């Protein structure tokens, strides 16, 4: 599968995603510059983590106006696969490619740690290599990951299966303590109604090598690669 990794000014996990896809997963990938408009024939677009435009004003609020985002929006509208991790998730919400928004963590501080998330819907291009109920261990590192959406929208999302990942304990159970940032309904990752755009706060690209603490992130990339 051919991937396109977008580099915004202030992207930080762009090189890490590129390395995970190419060196570790053996995929074909190209870096895409935010001032360009060509997606270079990519079959899946990855918006990486970081602090695009310093996250000044609001996370993802400026990046969504980058020239490349016009192309990403069109690509998504045509059914192309788009995944956004962390800041990429925030950008996708700002661009209204995903429902909801990400706000300051409940603790009001940045959190970097490994967490558990439960796969809520395995019938998507992003999760098809897993089973519903599987528990993944993935790192998070963000200051603004508290997912919010209006209650009726959340209800509809749940009904349609758009909640893809939920924070949980190692045993798969939800609890207050297992919800690191205070997200509504412990939501860690969501998809759009067409299930071709996916955003998540955890960093699968930082969980692809056992020496660096785990390989559960591979399952997400393997799912996408199998969806081509």
């Amino acid at each position: 599968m051919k991937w396109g990794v977008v580099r915004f000014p202030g992207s930080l996990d762009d090189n890490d995603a590129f390395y995970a896809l190419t060196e570790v997963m053996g995929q074909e990938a190209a870096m895409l510059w935010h001032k360009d408009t060509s997606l270079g024939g990519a079959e899946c677009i990855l918006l990486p983590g970081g602090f695009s435009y310093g996250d000044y004003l609001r996370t993802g609020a400026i990046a969504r106006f980058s020239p490349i985002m016009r192309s990403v929006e069109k690509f998504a509208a045509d059914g192309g696969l788009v995944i956004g991790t962390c800041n990429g998730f925030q950008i996708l919400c700002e661009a209204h490619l995903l429902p909801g928004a990400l706000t300051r963590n409940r603790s009001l501080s940045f959190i970097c740690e490994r967490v558990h998330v439960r796969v809520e819907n395995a019938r998507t291009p992003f999760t098809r290599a897993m089973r519903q109920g599987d528990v993944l261990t993935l790192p998070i590192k963000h200051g603004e990951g508290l997912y919010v959406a209006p209650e009726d929208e959340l209800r509809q999302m749940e009904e349609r299966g758009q909640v893809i990942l939920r924070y949980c304990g190692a045993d798969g159970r939800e609890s207050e303590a297992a919800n690191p940032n205070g997200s509504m309904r412990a939501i860690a990752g969501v998809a759009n109604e067409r299930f071709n755009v996916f955003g998540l706060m955890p960093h699968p690209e930082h969980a692809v090598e056992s020496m660096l603490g785990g390989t559960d992130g591979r399952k997400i990339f393997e799912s996408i690669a199998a969806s081509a």
Partner: protein
Amino acid sequence: MKPVALPGEPRVDLAQGRAHGLSAEEFARVEQILGRVATFTELGVFSVMWSEHCSYKSSRKYLRTLPQKSELVVQGGPGENAGAIDVGDGWVAVFKIESHNHPSYVEPYQGAATGVGGILRDIFTMGARPIASMNSLKFGSFDHPRTRYLIGGVVGGIGGYGNCVGVPTVAGEVMFDAAYNGNILVNAFSLGLARAGELWSARARGVGNPVLYVGSATGRDGIHGASLLASAEFDAESESKRPTVQVGDPFTEKLLIEACLEAGKTGAIVAIQDMGAAGLTSSSSEMAARGGLGIDLDLDQVPLRDQSLTPYEILLSESQERMLIVAERGREAELQAVFEKWDLHAVVIGEVTADKRWRARWRGQVVADIPAAALTDDAPVYDRPAHASAKPSAPRARIRRENPAPAVALRAMLSNPNVASKRWVFRQYDSIVQGNTVLGPGGDAAVLRIKGSHRALALKVDSNPRACALDPYAGAVATVIEAARNVACVGARPVGITNCLNYGNPERPEIMWQFAEGVRGLGDAARAIGAPVVSGNVSFYNETEGRAIPPTPTIAVLGLMTDVARHVTAHFKRAGDAIAIVRTAPPSLAASEYAAMYGESDETLTPIDLVRENALLEGLVVCAEQRLIGSAHDVAEGGLAVAIAEACFNPEARLGAEVDLSAHGLADTVELFGEGPSTVVISAAPQDIAALTRVFSTRGLAIYQAGRVLAEPRLALHGALDENINELFELYEAALPGRLASHD
């Protein structure tokens, strides 16, 4: 060329010189160098460049004595912005530690943030991509009203900057002690990697080459940060110095890193230096002086945030995220294209000249004209009087006669913020970005892999102010070997040192003596372990209202391992493994956390045998390389009992330990909670113990086979205590958040 005085400028006289921090002798010397009275602008320039912070005028004599060479050293000692060590497979590690103490006390968030930003620029100005940061923090006691505010601000600032700039914070240390109530310490370390043979220089070359200003525009922030804030004691007026603290913009720094590293690939950069302390003035005059040349600056070309800035302010501003580049003539456009791509200023503001003068023009007039070397190499150097205080320090009380029961003491120890988990702090730092962090915060040392190589780097920063307060020489030695031992515990050979020397007012002979003794200890220890001191920073004037901090040399050690797969962690791995204790000398309560909690000790520090210390380091590395060790953990704050408990706190599987100390006569308070040099707790498969023992015994060190790892979470130190590990872990993790949340 005689510079002009500008309308409305204050008159320059001795009183004005003193207000700028110059002594009468220094003021007279300025006049002698110039052959006339300085202009107000020039006075400002001399004041920052001759400040302690920039000139190292009190410390230079001593720093020359440090070992700066080894077969691996590519760049060591003065002359460039950071030290560099060849770590193999075509890579060079560039690293340095620096203080940002006073700014962080006055304005904790921005002070700490810009400390991180400044040290990062020292690394990428050498052509190295920053790959890891560490920090060493000293706060006052929790009882002090300012402590919670300061720790929140400092940790927030380090995270706010480091996380946004995309460099992982992988290790550090945090200590609370009333001695830092009025003067906290914030020391920031950064490490970068460059390809061998591709380091950049900060030495101007080529008369007629253009000087490019790149990065943020210049504002009015940070003026006299280096001189009036960093090079003077604190007093009641210090709050008013808040405007001398710079404001950081990590987003721009991230762009600057990418743009500079990309610009370097053009080959058009002749020399480059960041505009750190003393900003435009220091970067331009130092590059000129190193090259034995001059530089002419046209201040009208400098990008400004506020057009009303005077030449004095433009030259002295410490606005962040700015670099100065000497480019190859005719290739400016190539560089400018790169910076434009990253939306950064890149403006030609001057050129290299042959006349060795540092000259600044503004609105058609020369406003400063000074021999470049007078600002740098020829700045005053002092051999200040140094002698121990004639008055013995206050007599210390003996250990309280009734010591608490060992179990009570252990629980109190694990609940003490100096010993307890620092997760509340390091959880706020991105420790994994860039994808190299094999071992992050919370262990003995951090381990970073080098992509495309089997090699890995280990990093640790340490300090031991309590030992330094008892004996500034032995304390400095102990600090170096502790950092080195931490690095050896993870299986890496110590190959290089950087230091941040935090002391009081050097104009007091007792402080100067502490400093001289500290540097002597640092040098002796560095020589003994074969790890040269390749870079560093001195922070004097850490005093508030006449009270100095304890001598605090902060030491960071770089370790190298040839096979990352052989790194060792601190946690016990398997039930049934043997637990062994190896040490160089019996422990002591002197300078220990136990002594601080239950009454000062009147003991003196155990003398350190550097031959045995080096043998311990070597033994640890050899055992790791031969895969003989399951875990290794250094005995530090809290002593042996705490170290064994920590080794049980394996996040994968909480294990226990059964250790019979009484068999070796180790069950008393000193053995359980003593910290002296040097003890390591090791676990190993039973069949490896014989080989492991041989490794140490051939180096003259005995091993105590003390016990075994248990499957159940129980800490049984026979003859002393028997505790539940899960309960101890709860105390250990809850202590710091609990202290920060309570408002008693």
